């Protein structure tokens, strides 16, 4: 997020707080929809400013969100999208690449942590020397690839079916079933890969690998903090 966008984002955060109940939900839905649809970050903040102004006036007059936006919030969002500037192909590709890398880093990091803890427990129980190598099996690689693909699948579904308006009981039920299905699928995948693809395909030294993960985590956290401070500082 560049400085100009961060400043407007900070202003919008302040004015959004003036909206109540349904108005607050409406602006959140609209902004999420535009962000998911790859609208340019600055353009999202411009629209957010204008729509917040529009909703605040309606709120003052005691009108409903439907009256303010013409009764069809989804249609309103689609029309906004038609006229909003999209992110360039390069910027969108860079963001997707970043998401893919973060996803892979988290998955491999968790796997590294689990493997190290397991080995430490075995050492303590049996009294054998700690193995300073990280064994990556074919099953691990398969799991990471499938889970990364699943993340993109979920993002794709989110991109193609915008959620505007109040969540209904049916939509909540579908979301719960989806979450249970994904968790079950992940557990099944982990079991299948551990059972059928146990061969080690790569052995990495554990200490440098751990250092890389710590460094990557620190860089990620620092970047987030800097962005947050820049946004809050206006």
């Amino acid at each position, binding site marked *: 997020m560049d400085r100009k966008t961060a400043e407007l984002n900070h*202003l*919008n955060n302040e*004015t959004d707080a*003036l909206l109540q109940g349904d108005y607050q939900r409406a602006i959140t839905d609209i902004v999420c929809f535009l962000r998911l649809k790859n609208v340019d970050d600055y353009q999202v903040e411009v*629209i957010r*400013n*204008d*729509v*917040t*102004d*529009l909703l*605040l*006036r*309606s709120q003052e007059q005691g009108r409903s969100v439907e*009256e*303010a*936006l*013409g*009764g*069809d*919030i989804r249609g*309103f969002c689609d*029309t*906004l999208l*038609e*006229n*909003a*500037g999209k992110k360039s192909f390069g910027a969108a590709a860079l963001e997707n690449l970043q998401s893919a890398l973060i996803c892979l880093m988290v998955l491999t990091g968790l796997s590294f942590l689990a493997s190290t803890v397991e080995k430490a427990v075995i050492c303590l129980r049996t009294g054998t020397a700690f193995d300073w190598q990280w064994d990556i099996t074919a099953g691990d690689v398969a799991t990471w690839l499938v889970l990364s693909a699943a993340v993109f699948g979920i993002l794709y579904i989110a991109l193609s079916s915008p959620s505007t308006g109040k969540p209904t009981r049916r939509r909540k039920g579908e979301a719960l079933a989806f979450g249970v299905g994904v968790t079950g699928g992940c557990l099944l995948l982990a079991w299948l890969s551990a059972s059928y693809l146990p061969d080690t395909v790569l052995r990495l030294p554990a200490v440098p690998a751990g250092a890389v993960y710590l460094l990557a985590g620190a860089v990620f956290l620092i970047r987030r903090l800097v962005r947050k401070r820049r946004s809050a500082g206006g």
Partner: protein
Amino acid sequence: MIPSQLLKGTLEGCLLEIIRRREIYGYEISQELARCGFGPISDGTIYPLLMRLEKNGCIAATYRSSAAGPRRKYYTITPAGEAQLRQFCASWGELSAAVQGLFEKEEPCNGQENR
């Protein structure tokens, strides 16, 4: 109240005409339309049209700070917008003359004879 399907093609031209008269804040546009007899038209209908006109370079927007909330957007017409408005006026003239001609020359819809 004018049906929205009937308004669809004409509202953009009407917005240009309102903006041509003076620099105007978005909210005042819906009030101006209501005052001219268009009935209540939601901001949710007007805002995307203003966005499109701005994107096409027909109007320009300036932000002014407001004590009550977010910055307010004021619109002015551009030379491209004036050209589009002239084109709209010409098309509208043709359409309204044609519709009027149709109803004057032929038997009216309610079946009564035209006098």
